[in-house]
């Protein structure tokens, strides 16, 4: 595999017109500000993560970009237009539980829905023009299946695929129509550690090689840290955006959450986020086992929890 192409604009202002731009964006639910002050420009091929404690409204930010939820403050521009108007140029993978094991539909058919699942009418077996289109569609479906490395199990019933296999097929589905912006809601959730690393690497590769801008909600930054271009850290009432090196620091996170948060750098260059007293030990345990041969060489890795300050504590501190 060729070495990954470095992103055009790691840290700096993007040269190409941004795929997604947020200016002072904020969302209110029932009079309470979920988060606000999100300023962001995502260039083609960039990988952005949305981080923050549970319930802070990470998925809500994706819904705002999709045009499913209006902003209370600021503005959002998606591919030069209002959110929700870009149609097939935006791919979306919502948060999910896995498919029912008894679901007897091939993975390939699930992927194909990304292409024609919203088309009304019957696919009649007509010759000529339609035949050519259907062939082109079958080729495209095979392309994305190859891209995510799902060739070996695409013809199995999706209910019998593992969580990682299902997630790859769903990413393939979202890629069918060659979107310029891909929105993923916790795609690594409920995957085991080797699969988290592999799917994170796959998403990073899609960014670099296909030039797709990816915005991904994550509750754990560690598996993707080596692939990230920028992060959005959401907190109640506020937000911090920038490169991981800018945002995942003691000063920024302490200011954002209003409670002491320490980011430590280990001797081998990994990042450890030490938060409030309720930081769950479970997370650090998981990352110790994760730091195996799958770690890209030289990539910074945080071994703490990005959710360091517990939500309750954060809220109290913010008032």
């Amino acid at each position: 595999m060729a070495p990954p192409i470095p992103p055009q604009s790691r840290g700096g202002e993007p040269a190409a017109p941004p795929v997604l731009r947020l200016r002072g964006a904020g969302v209110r639910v029932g009079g309470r500000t979920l988060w606000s002050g999100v300023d962001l420009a995502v260039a083609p091929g960039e990988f952005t993560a949305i981080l923050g404690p549970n319930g802070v409204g990470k998925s809500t930010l994706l819904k705002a970009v999709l045009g499913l939820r209006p902003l209370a403050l600021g503005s959002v521009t998606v591919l030069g237009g209002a959110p929700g108007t870009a149609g097939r140029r935006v791919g979306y993978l919502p948060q999910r539980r896995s498919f029912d094991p008894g679901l007897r539909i091939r993975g390939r058919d699930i992927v194909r829905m990304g292409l024609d699942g919203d088309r009304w009418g019957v696919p009649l077996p007509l010759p000529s023009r339609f035949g050519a289109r259907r062939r082109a569609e079958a080729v495209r479906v095979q392309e994305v299946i190859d891209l995510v490395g799902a060739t070996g199990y695409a013809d199995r019933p999706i209910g019998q695929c593992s969580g990682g296999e299902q997630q790859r097929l769903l990413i393939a589905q979202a890629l069918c129509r060659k979107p310029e912006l891909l929105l993923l809601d916790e795609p690594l959730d409920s995957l085991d550690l080797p699969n988290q690393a592999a799917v994170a690497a796959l998403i990073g590769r899609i960014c670099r090689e296909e030039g797709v801008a990816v915005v991904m909600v994550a509750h754990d930054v560690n598996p993707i840290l080596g692939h990230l271009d920028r992060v959005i850290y959401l907190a109640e009432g506020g937000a911090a955006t920038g490169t991981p090196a800018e945002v995942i620091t003691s000063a920024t996170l302490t200011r954002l959450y209003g409670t002491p948060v320490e980011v430590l750098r280990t001797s081998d260059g990994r990042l450890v986020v030490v938060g409030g007293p309720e930081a769950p030990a479970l997370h650090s345990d998981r990352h110790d086992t994760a730091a195996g041969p799958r770690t890209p060489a030289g990539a910074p890795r945080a071994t703490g929890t990005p959710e360091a300050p517990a939500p309750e504590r954060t809220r109290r501190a913010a008032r």
Partner: protein
Amino acid sequence: MPLADAGLTAWSWNPLTDIQVMWSYPFMVNAFRAGAVIAVLSAAVGWFVVLRRQTFAAHTLAVVGFPGASGAVLVGVASGYGYFAFCLAAAVVIAMLPGAGQGHGEESALIGTVQAFLLACGFLFVALYKGFLGGVDALLFGSFLGIGDGQVVLLAVVAVVVLAVLAAVGRPLLFASVDPSVAAARALPVRALSVVFLVLLGAATAEASQITGSLLVFALLVMPPATAQLLSPRAAVSLPLGMLIGLAVTWLGLTAAYYSPYPVGFFVTTFAFAAYVLARAARTAATAFGARGPRPGTGATGGTPHAVEEAAA
């Protein structure tokens, strides 16, 4: 229907003459025609019922059809109209319940309560109508007698309309059934699709009830498509295969019922059940057999070429 007892027919072991004898009776020809229409429609709609896990909704609609049919007979109308009126009305009512379409509305206690009450009403109608010959059995467990030409036409017209609508909404309905959240993000009207599907299901249930009775609708609505989905995960194969299985079990059931003293509902259900058991056994055997030999292309989880490649990069 104990036709054999009446000395009407006897199995001759010559299938050709047997079929000729059977089809020399117009009521039998009508039963086969109606059976074909019903089997194909039920398998098509049932294919989505199995995918959407809406068998409880189908059962509810079928039970509601029983007072419809017995009420229709009581007021002097063909039972078929009663099935259609009540099943379609019930489908619309269920679709309007809060939570319908997310899989909760169809399973509420309210549904169970109303369903039991309507079943009791149906029983009352049968009791009120004194001249019913074996009426409860026929309405609950199926009958192939008394299907007139007009009824066959009605069944066919309803089936054509339902299949046309199903074909038009087929792909979005499949998308919304398998992956509602992504379908909604694609701006598909997921809620409206589930309402439309419930109405189609009401019509299909009303049709199936007319061969299998209210309580055995699953014989045509669930078993054939479930069998077909066991045999193939390809939508393009399992959908027509389900229709074929439904048609086969219906016609075999009608033939068996004609030449024996036992009711048609039993035979159709038994044949459909046998097909399902065979399919399950075949799957189990195939899995056991496949697990022993090497399975190319089905690498272990996370061990796909790309995963390894990326981890090493």
